[in-house]
């Protein structure tokens, strides 16, 4: 029972995430900022009469947030009854994992450690498999 994986590019990396965590893809337009919220909360956006909370992937990992981004691609991640739009640089493909994910053989690196589930073989490449829901809580380093 191979898991379907979504391959996206975010924060400058190609990564894989379980497709089951993703409800859809959306092109964001008109993001309304949420003043005083944590840096990874990029704002709110409407999708078919529904409010999406837009998450900036860079900031969620503890990196510098994207500057003044008002539009772009995002993946819709439902979590605990709310819908989030995680901003990504590009959505590449949906593939079947050729093998179950393996534990990380090395440190994923600052920021990435917290979201990493393991590594996964996708075709010829070995990609980082991430838990999208861990992006939503934001970076503890920044919150502190």
């Amino acid at each position, binding site marked *: 029972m191979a898991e379907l994986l979504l391959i996206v590019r975010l924060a400058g990396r190609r990564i894989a995430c379980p497709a089951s965590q993703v409800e859809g893809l959306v092109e964001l337009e008109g993001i309304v900022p949420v003043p005083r*919220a944590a840096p990874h909360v990029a704002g709110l956006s409407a999708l078919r009469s529904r409010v999406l909370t837009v998450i900036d992937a860079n900031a969620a990992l503890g990196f510098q947030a994207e500057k003044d981004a008002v539009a772009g691609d995002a993946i819709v991640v439902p979590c605990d009854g709310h819908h989030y739009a995680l901003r990504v640089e590009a959505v590449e493909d949906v593939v079947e994992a050729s093998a179950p994910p393996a534990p990380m053989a090395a440190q994923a690196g600052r920021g990435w450690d917290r979201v990493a589930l393991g590594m996964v073989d996708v075709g010829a490449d070995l990609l980082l498999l991430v838990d999208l829901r861990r992006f939503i809580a934001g970076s503890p380093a920044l919150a502190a």
Partner: protein
Amino acid sequence: MDDLINDFLAETREMLQALSGAIVAWETDPADRARLDEIFRFVHTVKGNCGFFELPRLRQLSHAAEDALAEVRAGRREADATLVSAVLAVIDRIGELVQALETGEPLASEDDEQLIAAVTGTAAPLLVEAQASPAAPAAKKGMRSIRLSVELLDRMMSGVSDAVLARNELARRLRDAPRDVAVEAAFERLSACIADIREAITRTRMQRIDNLFSALPRMVRDLAADLGKQVQLQVEGGEVELDREMIEMIRDPLTHIIRNAVDHGIEAPVDRASAGKPAAGRLKVSARQSGNQILIEVADDGRGIDADALVRRAVAAGTITGEAAERLSAADSNALIFTPGLSTAGEVTTISGRGVGMDVVRANVERIGGLVEIDSRPGQGVRLCMRVPLTLTIIPALTVSAGGQTFALPRAAIEEILRASGPTVRVERVGDARVATVRDRRVALIDLDDLLGTGPREGENDGRIILLKPGAGATYALRVDAVHDHEELVIKPAAPPVMAAGIYAGTTLADDGRPILLLDPSGIAAQAQLATVEQPADPESPATANEERGQATLLLFKSLDGRLRAAPVGTVERIEDVPAEAIGFSAGRLRARVGERILPLAGCDSPPASGRLRILRLSDGASQLAYAFGDVVDVRKAALDLQPAPQPGEIAGVALIDGQPVELLDVHWLFASHVEAVVSGHGRPAVCAIPADDPWMANMLRPLVESLGYRVVGEGVAADLVIASAEEAPPIAAQGAQLLRIRSSAEADGDNDDSIYRYDRAALVAALRRRRAGGAAHG
């Protein structure tokens, strides 16, 4: 148990309805095995279920049918026409019994034996009424209900909320598109449908607050027993309905308040005795609806809040300064109970520590858009009032903008909206803080731009100032760039990372499809670290005091013909929407049926053709009347320079408020001319005896007598006035009682006849008035 039986009956009825097709099919083809199985399962289920209840007839019937069908299924018996008819007759009888049990009607035919004999094949074939179709009983009158899962209702509600938002989006796109009358008409229809559905679904989610109240007697009893106290609980208003979700949201706060009242409010029997109170403390929990809010009140007759101790603790904890404490009003001192970490309880008991947790109660109630108010009288008790909206999802809100972004504010927290550059407001910078002086009040000013960090505003004096009162906290001023609109918004909870900012209560979508954040007034105060206590501007200034005296708090509204009018807030009991069909001319004037009461209606000349009418329910303490109006504009405190109207009438005069002429209602005139005079006797009411066996007297005379202030009793009872028929022998009147004889013929019987013709109303009223004055003098 009753619930279980009702569930069982409803279920059986549903199964019968579902089965009707199978029965018809089986009747035409008795060999149809699938149908046979379906019917077998039905009787089997009914038999199994009635085992739990005392329903012997249903059990016997279903048992017999089950046995017979089991024989057929096992191939031991042929499903011939006789058997089919007999089984169908049994199923019909089950339907009739269920119907009778549900409606409480007398049971149908008592003779089940014959049917059972027919099914078991021990009797001669029976002639069963062929027309007895199973659908017929269900079509009879009776409660028609189905059971739905709560989850489904929630889904429907969220679906309809989405539909409202989708409608709004469509409206926006239609505005941008070229005008098309046909499309617009269709859209209007769609809008109306969605509004109807929303209302209906909102109602399906309504639940009687009894669901919450029913657990209270047991809880209070147990608590009182644990604490060695005696508590008499009185619960009122259980029939009030509110959103199911809301009931869940207020469950904990209510429990907490009641625990507090029993634990810390009501004293031990010994202490009560020494305070001269009855040993059993009284605790009253009541609910009532007021406009689109529900008021839940918990009142005890215990020792009240020790306000001094509370203030001492607040000073010790550094919540307020000693100087500020000196100037606290009684109400403000009591409100300190909502401050986190303050408790007046000498020791914190296992039940509760008054104060500990009251901040949580307030926070929880405010989170759902409600308010908590407290009123305490030392030695006499505490009254806590929770005001919560009817539903969580749709709230009246005001949209404002700051830093180029639109936000919404819950209308419930807004006290007043002022022009920042207006004459009534003065803004000063004190250190780094800003203080707004509005008339005689000095409140902290929060600049929404600063708070949100959306960049500095240009100029000092533009924008609007909104006075916000977050629950029991101090009023503060919020400066925004502009105030836009009053709207009913569909509020959805915001995602946790958004809520974490601490100043938002939810999200909604604007008509243009953009998300709007709903601001949380308490959260803003907390984030801005405002002092919790309001300070009067200059308590010594006599001018301020005088000004205050000349001011009236007024409800500003638009009348039905669009005029700006005002009524003193104190006379407005509540605002209600009344459907057009509840309004009509009766007994010579326009009246409105409001809840259980019929009120005289002023403010309009004719009943509306359709739709709903908004009314102010005015009260003078004893009677009420309804006043039709269009829209609420504002609640304002204003010093009135009234130009009186030339002649007495609905309008007392006109005054300028914020430069606009406002007509002030003459509430006294309204009551004087619209409310039927209630004549009250001086001292005890005069008593009038009326023959009880005379229908004309009981039905027609009695109301007239009562309307003139008499208390009516039957004959033979001591009375001030005895009324008797002139045609009968005069009764033996008691000492001091006067006699009034009434004849049924218009002609007097000779000159000495002092009786009054029964339809000579003027003479009757005059005689009753005269004698009442005499009677009261006796008493």
